[in-house]
């Protein structure tokens, strides 16, 4: 919870609009309803649903025209993680503890185009 709060604080400071939630299902609803959401940042481990599952679920339901980027935060990405990420079309992996400069670079790169 603390992480989400702090991350929100940082996004505010960077003037990036965001919706924060602890619930994967809520996130999915929000993403599906808001076409304006360009990017989904998820933790690989979440309650009731892994980040991968959420990404897989959204990308399977999302219209092909929509360009939604996925960024997965994980503690220790393994080969398998990379493989799954590639298959799911994940844009970037970010390791914990989060390097916020790197996150900013990834956000800027992906949100600018």
């Amino acid at each position, binding site marked *: 919870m*603390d*992480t989400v*709060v*702090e*991350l929100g*604080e*940082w996004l505010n*400071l*960077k003037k990036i609009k965001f919706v924060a939630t602890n619930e*994967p*299902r809520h996130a999915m609803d929000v993403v599906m309803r808001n076409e304006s959401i360009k990017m989904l940042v998820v*933790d690989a*481990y*979440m*309650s*009731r*649903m*892994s980040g991968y*599952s*959420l990404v897989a*679920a959204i990308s399977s339901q999302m219209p092909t025209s929509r360009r939604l980027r996925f960024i997965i*935060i994980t*503690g*220790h990405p*393994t*080969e*398998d993680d990379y493989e799954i990420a590639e298959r799911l079309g994940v844009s970037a992996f970010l390791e*914990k*503890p*989060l390097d*916020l400069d790197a996150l900013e670079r990834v956000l800027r790169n992906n949100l600018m185009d």
Partner: protein
Amino acid sequence: MPLRMSWFVGSRRKISPWLLGFLLGCAGWLINQFPVPFGWNTQFLFGNAIALVAIRSIGPAVGVMAVSIASAETILRWNHPWAWLIWTVEAIFLAVSEKRIPLIIADFLFWVALGIPLIVLTYGVLMGVGPDTLILTAQKQPTNGLINVILAELLYIGLSKARKICRLRQLPPLSLHAVISTVLVAFTLIPGFLILSAQAQMKNSSLNLEVREKLLKATNNVKTRFDEFIRDHLATTATLAKIIVELRIEERAISSLDPGAVRTPASDLNWGQLIPVRIDCLDEKQALEKLKQSLAQMNLGRQDFSIVNRGTYVDFVIPLRDESGQFCRVTHSVSKKVFERQILDWNPSTGITAILLNGKQKIALGKPAHSIDVLPIQNISGDEMVEVHQTKPMRFGLSLLAALDNTLWARAVDLRSGLAWRAVLIYSPKSEMGLLRSRQSQILTILLALTALSIIVALSIGYFISRSLKGSASRISNREIGSTYLPSAFREISEINKEIDEMERALRNTQQELKINQDHLNTFLSHAPLIVYRTKITGESRGDVSFISKSVSRMLGYSTEEAGEKEWWIRNLHSDDRNAVIASFSSVSPGTAIEHEYRFRAKAGNYFWLHDTFVTLKEYSGECIGIGFLFDITDRKDMHYQHLRAARMANLGEMATSMAHELNQPLNTIKIAAFNIKTRLEMGILDRESCEARVERIIRQTDRAANLISHMRIFGREPAAQAVPFQLIDAVQGALTLVEYQLDALGILVNIDIPPGFPSILGHLTLMEQVFVNLFVNIRDAVKYRSSASEADNLEIMLTASVKDAVIEIKVSDNAGGIRIDILDRVFEPFITTKQLGDGVGLGLSISYGIIGDMGGSIDASNVGDGACFTIKLPIAPKFPLNPPAAGK
């Protein structure tokens, strides 16, 4: 209980041996009351035989006492203590030599060396019996003694048989020598004795008859001659008296036909003054003839005559009364020699003596060898032959045999009636008896010589047989393999020897096989990687080692002697294990096996882990022994610990990823918060409130990381060697500390249901924690790999604990999909995993299985509903642990 020969055979009831000996002695005394006559006052007594049995069957001292009691009868019977003395000495001699030589031979030796000299001393010197009697006694007594010993030995054999039949304690058997010599001597002596005895009785009665005949003849002869003599001499005296009356001789005188007669008045006839008148008669025959003629007309009553013994003369007295009425008497003195010649006109070598009796008057005719005054012949009635003794026969100190030497046979006869004279004829059968006795003693000599010969023959037969038998026996006992035996003179023994040879061959083969087996066994025992031992069982506890295989020196460094020392085993138990080990070995019972693993100090001082399997057996004797096997399981134990360590390391490895994740979580928050502060600083908008919130968050997350790390350190610690009781809830919470954030992150709820006051578990807290961590991590991984979020909405772990029948049951179940069916049976095997590389190597459950097993419990896996369920069963920790943990541990 029926009285079955109880005192005689020696019943199960305890009777004092002395009382038994006394009873046997009394029985002997009773039997001695019935002697077997051997002629002429010689008697055989067999009562001692029954008393002699006591020497062998009861005891030497008791036997001597019994014989002494039995033979005391002879003191009264024979009027002297010497037979009793000699027989008692005989018994002592037999008692002393009973164990060494056969009794019959001992007895023979006794009589030769001691008995006969004693007889000569006592009978010959002290009692003064004649040489014939002495010789006979010196032969009779040994014969009697030997027969008694034979009877005693035969009785003993019979007694042994009787005891065998009655199933009483066996008496010691007789030696071969004893049996052979007894039997041989018995066959020599007993028939000889019986024949001699019968013959003696016959000869005795025939001698009696002979003497009777002789005396009868003699008495008749004496009677006839006496009558004749009296007639003649009284006639002469009467004639003389008549002449005197007719001639009116003034002097009443006694006339003697014997010119040399000395006339003295007969004092015992107080018939008046005696006036000796001498009538010289030159021609005696003429004068007598004259007298006879004149006397024919006289009528003189016979009753008027009397005969008076007057020393060397015999007076014939006729009392006279003349016309004046005056009494006078005529005495006719006859020289006793003449009288004797006339009456005892037979060969004086016949040895018959005649004694004429009339009231107190006695006239001894012949040459009596005895003083007639002491002979009790007054009351002998006529026509009967009786024994008379010069001395009192029952006088103490006079042997019956000696008394018999002085015994006379007497026969009385009334002589002329009216005269009141009786003749007693006495005859001493000494010479006849002497002859017969010397014959008897000759035969006895032959018998005794035969006895000696029998003994020699018996000894040699016995010697040869026993040498052969002993040779055979020693071949068996010495186990001289291939020894040649002495060829025996007896076919049976040769056959025995052949049998022994065959037995020996078979035995040798068996022995060799046995030896080979023994060698093999020894080799096994000394080289096998185990120690075999045997212990005593004291009460119900394991006792000291009575046997231990040589491998003990190789494995533990102790010699077998050291291992046999008192309390070797208990002393060398590890102090931590000692109480528990002693407790488990303190109630052994036959047929049960006890297994225990414990540390044991080797001689070098280091400890070995031993696995001890101990079985209690009941031997044929009813005694209990313990047999045990010690295996060195130090390596296994080491491996077990290494395995545990490795497993823990593996666990740590497995957990490293989740730990990283677990730590990344706070670090992540801290970093972002710090970054936010930094960003605000750069932007110059750092307000106090925001800053405090960030710092608070950083502190909180730091604490969280620190807490995690400190528990990791506890978890990584080596478990204590000693199991201690702990609470289940502590183990569960410890495990949760390590994994709860991961579980929480995955939204897994953990429901714990442990009732309050739940019993303690004996074991290692950290190991139990590890078990739970393994289970939780497995659930975590199962959730992580789920591909779909739809599988379950409310993920949860249920941990419930209960107690059933003193067994703690812990169930850990989840709803994360369960275990794959194909590996359900193998989940506890090592390296079985469904996890992806890097998450685990498949050791977790196998380690858990080992940990629970070590705690004496079990763990099972099953699929229940929508998830897996692990059931752990554990024993309740004892209220008072066997090894209370040392203070400060």
